[in-house]
């Protein structure tokens, strides 16, 4: 701690201060110059240039450097005066931890209440309610642990900050305590596992109920599209064979399977309330994920593999609109597995309606099977339609093809986006 070193340091510090003052003046001059030239206009264009922000950042760096130098000068003066270290950084950091705890706890409270109120509304399906119960239980337990451990962590950090008067307590281990905090988390987790396991089983292991058979709906994903297929009167969705895919048979539906003949195209998913539905999920190209967050439903659609998800919607769209107080509310199907360029915009509208509305809607849907497809599959072109009304069948077909064309156009639009 020779005086010479101090002087050198002081000169250095002074030089640094002069230097920074000069530089910041310089920077200011530049900025004012820039401002002066832009005076007749507004500052808008300047705020848009990267140089402006780089300069701002450099200014901030200079500011920090000046503070650093000033602190150093202060500490060195204290040192020469023979006093203890100027600033007790240890205490400052300890206090900051305590402060962080207080502000952080408030922040967590704020997040839970403000952002917590922006999350999904209540589950709109039977199993969803059980998932939410599971979620709430987990949330309560983890929040308690989260808060307590953080209080302990930062309070210890504050209380046990270094002091010359004290020596740390030599306490290498305590088997009893360690056993307790191994066993207690294990027990809590056992509880969560058990409940989780039961919930999981109740979702994926459904007993067949002959009186309440689920509606079968097939969803086939392809890049940035969901194709929905409803069964006709036979209540069975026909087979698909990807090798049969052609321009007019985009899904590769096997019309040799008589169950396919009455299958219906739908451009949205409409579900009757309180009736079980069983989705058959498949994919044409890459993996997508069939995700309907409001129903707590998600399952990947995997090419080469068919998977199923069965659930019962319990709240109609209208009811949900009143519940969420949002007249524009709609259920939605989106893709949750990265699938390419338009992954972010792969959606389908979902409506939950009353049984009657559902039947009405279903009756208005057009079948997949068109005359072109009949020709392709060597199926007889229906003749019984002819006496009933010769014009109707072609008309229906043309609307169907029109719909198909429309879909195609949509595709292209989606791709262009």
């Amino acid at each position, binding site marked *: 701690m020779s005086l010479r070193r101090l002087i050198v340091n002081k000169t250095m510090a002074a030089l640094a201060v002069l230097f920074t003052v000069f530089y910041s003046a310089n920077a200011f001059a530049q900025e004012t110059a820039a401002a002066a030239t832009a005076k007749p206009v507004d500052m808008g264009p300047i705020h848009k240039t990267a140089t402006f922000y780089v300069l701002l950042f450099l200014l901030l760096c200079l500011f920090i450097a000046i503070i650093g130098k000033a602190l150093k000068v202060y500490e060195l003066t204290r040192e020469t005066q023979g006093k203890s270290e100027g600033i007790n950084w240890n205490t400052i950091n300890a206090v900051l931890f305590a402060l962080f705890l207080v502000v952080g706890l408030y922040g967590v409270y704020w997040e839970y209440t403000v952002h917590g109120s922006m999350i999904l509304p209540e589950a709109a399906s039977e199993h969803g309610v059980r998932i939410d119960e599971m979620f709430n239980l987990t949330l309560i337990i983890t929040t308690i642990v989260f808060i307590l451990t953080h209080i302990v962590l930062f309070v210890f950090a504050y209380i046990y900050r270094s002091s010359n008067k004290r020596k740390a307590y030599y306490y290498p281990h305590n088997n009893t305590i360690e056993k307790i905090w191994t066993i207690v988390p294990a027990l809590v987790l056992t509880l969560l596992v058990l409940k989780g396991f039961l919930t999981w089983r109740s979702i*994926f292991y459904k007993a067949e109920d002959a009186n309440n058979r689920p509606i079968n709906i097939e969803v086939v994903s392809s890049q940035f599209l969901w194709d929905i297929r409803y069964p006709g009167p036979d209540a069975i969705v026909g087979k698909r064979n990807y090798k049969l895919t052609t321009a007019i048979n985009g899904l590769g539906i096997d019309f040799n399977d008589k169950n396919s003949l009455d299958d219906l195209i739908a451009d949205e998913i409409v579900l009757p309330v309180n009736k079980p539905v069983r989705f058959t999920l498949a994919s044409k190209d890459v993996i997508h994920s069939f995700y309907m967050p409001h129903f707590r439903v998600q399952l990947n659609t995997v090419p080469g593999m068919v998977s199923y998800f069965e659930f019962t919607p319990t709240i109609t769209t209208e009811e949900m609109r009143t519940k969420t107080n949002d007249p524009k509310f709609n259920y939605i199907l989106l893709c949750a597995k990265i699938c390419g360029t338009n992954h972010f915009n792969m959606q389908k509208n979902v409506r939950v309606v009353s049984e009657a509305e559902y039947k009405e809607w279903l009756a208005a849907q057009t079948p997949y099977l068109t005359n072109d497809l009949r020709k392709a599959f060597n199926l007889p072109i229906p003749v019984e339609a002819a006496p009933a009304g010769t014009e109707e069948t072609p008309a229906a077909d043309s609307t169907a093809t029109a719909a198909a064309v429309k879909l195609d156009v949509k595709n292209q639009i989606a791709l262009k986006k």
Partner: protein
Amino acid sequence: MSTISLHDTHHDDHGHGHHHETFLTKYVFSQDHKMIAKQFLITGIIMAVIAMLLSILFRIQLAWPDKTFPLLETFLGKWAEGGRIKPDFFLALVTIHGTIMVFFVLTAGLSGTFSNLLIPLQLGARDMASPFMNMLSYWFFLVACVIMMSSFFVQTGPASGGWTVYPPLSAVPKAMPGSGLGMTLWLVSMVIFVASSLMGSLNYVATILNMRTKGMDLWKMPLTIWAIFLTAVLGILSFPVLVSGVVLLIFDRSFGTSFYLSDLVFGTEILPNEGGSPILWQHLFWFLGHPEVYIVIMPALGISSEIISVNSRKPIFGYHAMVYSLIGITVLSFIVWGHHMFVTGMNPLLGGVFMITTLIIAVPSAVKTFNYLATLWRGNIRFTPAMLFAVGLVSFFISGGLTGIFLGNASLDINLHDTYFVVAHFHLVMGSAAIFGMLAGVYHWFPKMFGRMMNPKLAYLHFWVTFICAYLVFFPLHFLGLDGVPRRYYAFTEFEFMNKWLTVNTFVTWSAIVAALAQVAFLFNFFYSIFRGKKATQNPWEANTLEWTTPVERLHGNWPGEIPTVYRWPYDYSKPGAAEDFIPQTTPFSETMSSNLPHDFEGNEEAERIQKEWEATNKPVQQ
């Protein structure tokens, strides 16, 4: 001594100077473990900065999806035509950010640096078991980095199927532009990376098992070494599985096989592949992928154990429990990979099994956390920069670990899978926590690496801004996930319900930018201190472990004379009766008669007798 002490200490007067060091052998093709550690560290830091900049780019897109930034076009050209990042490039950014962070920064940068630095130094070895292989390990790593970065200069852009590169998206070039040459480069880079990682890991295990100094039995090893050892074992057992998966994917992509592909139709084009399963890739990938996240976090936990103990001036609480919990995590991490696949359509029975194993792994993690807290209790805590980061790690580990309990639960995962909840979870528990472990290690062992100290005040600034901003970035993201917002979405503009999160996105991006700027404080501090930092003393933190008995100046061979002998465990801090509040491992019990405890002698009757005799004669004097 001149300011560049690094450069003038190679006079080979320390007994094993039979080879001459040139610039090339010393700094480039070095076989000295300390230099290789520095090479790993600096490469890791550079990769981290790159990955961080990539994340800022896609955060900008998320925050201002409708604004144009002409500057982006200047730098990114056609990938940001008109000043807006394109969807394909957005996915590439996300993918490469993830790949670099997980593999190049947190695996190689973290393990590579601290394994190389600490294994010989803390165990008392002159170098690694195989210095040449060690050097190869670094060079393979560098080649992997270069290949990965070169994919930015490919016409179709870098790989963009997410860092997990699930086929068929990654396997079929027409599925997305990034699945062209960029994906090939990704796979090649990954094979080379795994080769690097394996050479490193084998070396670490061989060194730890065979080259410990006299007296250094396994239960006297610092927890850093335990963590690194188990990490290396994990790597050796799991990385080869990734290679096999990658090789099959290369075959599918380039040689027309169908390991992962079947029943594919693009538009109306029917691909000839038949009989494969995309799920196979997921099993192979996650068989590595899940151990991988422990490969990332365990060294960080080991580092923080050491740092918390040193700076609390207390022995780590429950040393044995800490080791056993690490072993438990190691073993369990191999049987939990299925929790990444709950909603792939895998048999639900498997989902149930994987849920059980996954939640069991929370137990050893909880034990570790509680032990950290108990170590702080009644300590005498010095908040060195390293200690701040270690405390930050504990906080992140708790916050991120707890959300793992949600995701590990198969029934909750249905609605949380692939949402922002997952993003928030792993960025806290393995992103932020592991990075904080790494930074803690850098601040703690900087004096050992470069013989100089880093500026603590800049480090405080760095810590506080980073710590606060990391929470500001990742905490709100949980709620996006709870609202059902999927991850890897280019923009939130297409869905009505996501509009309410746009302001949150802007806030998160600003926080990320501030956090990124705070890293400038670190980078400046790091590189400036290498050359101009205050000179370090031999044992600046008053720590017990062996590395602080080596001279400040770098020596090839670490100790000038004989390698010291170890007599005690590394955590004798504030032992009652001792003069100082630390007793280095090299101090024999005969020199610390006043502080010895019966437990120290591990049943050695002769030693206990001597101790008793000493106490009988000295006790009254002491009183």
